[in-house]
């Protein structure tokens, strides 16, 4: 195996823990206010910080705040590619995304080769951007193979540095982030970093860890269980060795065995994904890729040859990025989305109505407009202005709860003294760098799941990959069109799509009633942005079991109808005129709200808004989405009750893609509604009422 040149090499002494850390950290003006628990986070950061100091002066206190600022933005291109990795792809890294990891690796190396302060600081802020899964990619030995070719890749980033586009106003967070880096670094993971790189890591091992994604033990533990005899030698491309494979795969190309009774086409689909896990595809993240499974019945010689050409031949890690690819990287937003023109109706979700809390209101003006302000394009998603200070607060609020035998943090908890802050802060938005850790925390709490169960779910996930699912063909049809504007999911059969397929495949076998339902895709994909596939699967299970998604997805969508019933009762009580308008225009709630509840607002609001809604959903449960639905109706109530409104105007409006004018206003409104104990208890009663209606067969006339 090629020597991982970068991360493992650094002169990080084995005993490198606090001493050198504090040296490094002392350059940070913020060190003084760090608590030890904050320092628990991430030895890899410390390690990499040290690497920088080897190559230049950037790490040694020469890093002034303005440097960070200027460099980060003076090197815009690079910053963009960084954001690909950091802000976006907590999941990507943890998702065994070969492409992202490798980018990451090369990014890591950049300062080393160029000794450019700017890059160093960019790198730093990047690292610090991500509390948990950062480590998965920067420290995971599985990624090391990528680094073998980093020397070549790094040159690409040199190309990136020169053109400094007009620097956007630097969010203050950068400043703070940079100063936090050293602080975060303790070193529990150094051991991990020093682990010898396995010649071949079993793919599933990458998934067998918590969202931290950095459990060396679990990773290594699963290697011996691999039925494969070190196939990495056979499959020379370094990437292959990091790709997750279903258990039972052999090193050969054909990796699965058809199960009894499995349809030929379904097996073809399942096997294709398994095979591609071994080889990878070319241009993952940049190119559209070549369709293989839909065209299965009519593959010609030329299409097969195209398919072969699209396989990664091992050159992926070493080739130069084209200008177009660089452009692509530059165009990504902080969550990894391309700037694509949306074909949806984009309407502004105005903040003004949200200044008034939910309470019975009279009808709006009869001459109110029937439509809302429409937007030509999706506005950019800036980093929330208070992100930096919030990160600091979350740093102080959380502490490690579960560690694996290697000392790596597998789960976080809220300090007892800070528990009363959790709700308020979650409503204000979990800082993105904390999201995977906190989502994990919230889901563990809400579903009362312990580490052992999560590990078990991991096994279940891997075992399910061996089994056929009658939903495989349908899942395969949906995978390429699930948030395909995201770099992780863009390339056909790229690592993101493969993970998505496998998570949905395994999940479709979990509950025989639910199976796979369209709508699970965007949910799983969102989870994959923050968790490794294995953990994303476990999260889906939490959502299904504890957050009542079972009732949403099971045949007939009983949970959907229940939520709609509650939504209608609230509407009827607080906005009687709106309720009457729905009635007179004969607009059933299912006709516009179905996708809200089934996709958990994945395709109805901007990604960042969706994340904010999920933050509170994971904290509070299913009432959240009823509240969001009510909020939308609340905002547009005057449009709905307008004298000029009709079936078409109302339905068009409510079928739109909603862009909140101010997310905080929306969240705060929802917070107040859900914080109202009377309201919550009534919501509970209505849910019960609905169940009674269903039980007595009276439900068919109970909804609009």
């Amino acid at each position, binding site marked *: 195996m090629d020597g991982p040149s970068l991360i493992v090499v650094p002169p990080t002494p084995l005993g490198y823990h606090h001493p050198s850390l504090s040296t490094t950290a002392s350059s940070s003006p913020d060190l003084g206010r760090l608590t030890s628990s904050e320092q628990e986070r991430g030895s890899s950061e410390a390690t990499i910080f040290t690497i920088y100091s080897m190559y230049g002066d950037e790490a040694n206190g020469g890093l002034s705040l303005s440097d960070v600022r200027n460099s980060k933005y003076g090197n815009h291109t690079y910053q963009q590619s960084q954001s690909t990795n950091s802000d976006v792809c907590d999941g990507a890294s943890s998702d065994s995304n070969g492409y992202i990891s490798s980018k990451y690796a090369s990014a890591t190396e950049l300062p080393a080769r160029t000794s450019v302060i700017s890059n160093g600081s960019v790198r730093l802020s990047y690292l610090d951007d991500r509390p948990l899964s950062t480590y998965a990619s920067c420290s995971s030995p599985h990624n090391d193979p990528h680094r073998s070719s980093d020397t070549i890749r790094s040159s690409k980033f040199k190309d990136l540095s020169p053109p400094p586009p007009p620097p956007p106003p630097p969010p203050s967070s950068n400043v703070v982030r940079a100063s936090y880096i050293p602080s975060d670094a303790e070193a529990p993971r150094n051991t991990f970093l020093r682990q010898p790189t396995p010649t071949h890591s079993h793919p599933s091992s990458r998934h067998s860890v918590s969202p931290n994604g950095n459990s060396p033990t679990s990773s290594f533990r699963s290697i011996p269980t691999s039925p494969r005899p070190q196939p990495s030698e056979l499959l020379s491309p370094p990437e292959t060795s990091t790709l997750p494979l279903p258990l039972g795969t052999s090193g050969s190309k054909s990796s699965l065995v058809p199960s009894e009774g499995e349809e030929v086409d379904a097996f073809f689909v399942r096997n294709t994904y398994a095979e591609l896990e071994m080889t990878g595809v070319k241009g993952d993240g940049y190119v559209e890729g070549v369709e293989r499974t839909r065209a299965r019945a009519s593959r010609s010689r030329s299409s097969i040859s195209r398919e072969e050409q699209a396989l990664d031949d091992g050159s992926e890690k070493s080739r130069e990025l084209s200008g177009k690819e660089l452009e692509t990287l530059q165009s990504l937003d902080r969550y990894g989305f391309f700037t694509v023109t949306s074909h949806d109706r984009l309407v502004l979700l105005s903040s003004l109505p949200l200044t008034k809390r939910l309470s019975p209101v009279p009808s709006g003006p009869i001459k109110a407009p029937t439509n809302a302000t429409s937007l030509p394009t999706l506005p950019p998603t800036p980093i929330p202005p208070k992100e930096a200070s919030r990160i600091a607060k979350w740093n102080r609020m959380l502490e490690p709860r579960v560690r694996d035998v290697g000392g790596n943090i597998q789960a976080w908890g809220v300090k007892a003294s800070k528990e009363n802050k959790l709700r308020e802060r979650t409503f204000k938005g979990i800082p993105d760098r904390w999201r995977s850790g906190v989502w994990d925390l919230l889901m563990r709490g809400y579903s009362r799941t312990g580490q052992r169960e999560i590990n078990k779910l991991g096994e279940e996930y891997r075992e399910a990959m061996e089994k056929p699912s009658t939903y495989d063909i349908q899942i395969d049809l949906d995978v390429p069109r699930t948030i395909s504007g995201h770099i992780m999911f863009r390339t056909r059969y790229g690592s993101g799509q493969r993970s998505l397929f496998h998570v949905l495949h395994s999940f479709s076998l979990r509950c025989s009633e639910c199976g796979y339902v*369209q709508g699970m895709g965007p949910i799983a994909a969102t989870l994959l942005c923050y968790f490794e596939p294995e953990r994303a699967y476990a999260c889906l299970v939490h959502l299904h079991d504890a957050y009542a998604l079972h009732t949403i997805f099971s045949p007939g969508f009983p949970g959907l109808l229940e939520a709609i019933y509650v939504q209608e009762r609230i509407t009827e009580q607080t906005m009687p005129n709106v309720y009457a308008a729905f009635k007179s225009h*004969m607009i059933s709630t299912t*006709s*516009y709200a179905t996708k809200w509840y*089934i996709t958990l607002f994945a395709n109805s609001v901007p990604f960042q808004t969706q994340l904010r809604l999920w933050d509170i959903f994971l904290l509070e449960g299913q009432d959240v989405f009823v509240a969001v639905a009510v909020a939308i109706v609340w905002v547009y109530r005057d449009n709905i009750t307008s004298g000029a409104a009709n079936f*078409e105007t109302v339905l068009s409006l409510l079928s739109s893609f909603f862009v909140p004018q101010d997310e905080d206003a929306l969240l705060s409104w929802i917070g107040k509604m859900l914080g109202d104990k009377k309201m919550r208890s009534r919501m509970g009663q209505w849910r019960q009422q609905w169940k009674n209606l269903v039980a007595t067969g009276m439900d*068919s*006339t109970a909804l609009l």
Partner: protein
Amino acid sequence: MSKQFQFKLVLLGESAVGKSSLVLRFVKDQFDDYRESTIGAAFLTQTVTLEDQTTVKFEIWDTAGQERYKSLAPMYYRNANCAVVVYDITQTTSLEKARTWIRELQRQADPSIVIALCGNKSDLSARRQVTQEEAKKYAEEEGLMWGETSAKSGEGVSDIFTAIAKKLPQTAAPPKAGGAARSGAAASRAGVDLNKQSNALGGQNEPCNC
């Protein structure tokens, strides 16, 4: 004074045959290679102006293709004036599914409903599995309109909707029957009543006075 009509149109068909793409092409003249799968149903409108200056406004219900969502379909086709049942010319199974939908419409939908069978993805004719003859023959037997389209290239898309627009005014139910049958609110919980009584255009065959 030109005539104006308003009709409800529902798209049905197997998952991923291109229902949403057809609508996107028809309504916005755009195409996405990978359009998100439709959850529940999507509502859009588009107006077609015929040669004689008659305008036909379609209220389009684009439905989800997955079997699980089939239970929601009746509320979208129940009062539809026309249905476009879509199959993918590169997938034989999708024509089978289309036949199932057509049988269901013939049994359950308004008897005067105009049904068009639409073979989509004609740009992929190199991978064709469903011949034009086969589909056409079936359509003739069942008395359906038929055409092939490519939402990707745009070929045939406006033709099929225009053909429906031309046919509808002659065949749609008279004002009191069929199409406008549902009166009163919320006849069932599934009741997306596609006929808005409150709308002046309730009478399908009557030219609007505006």
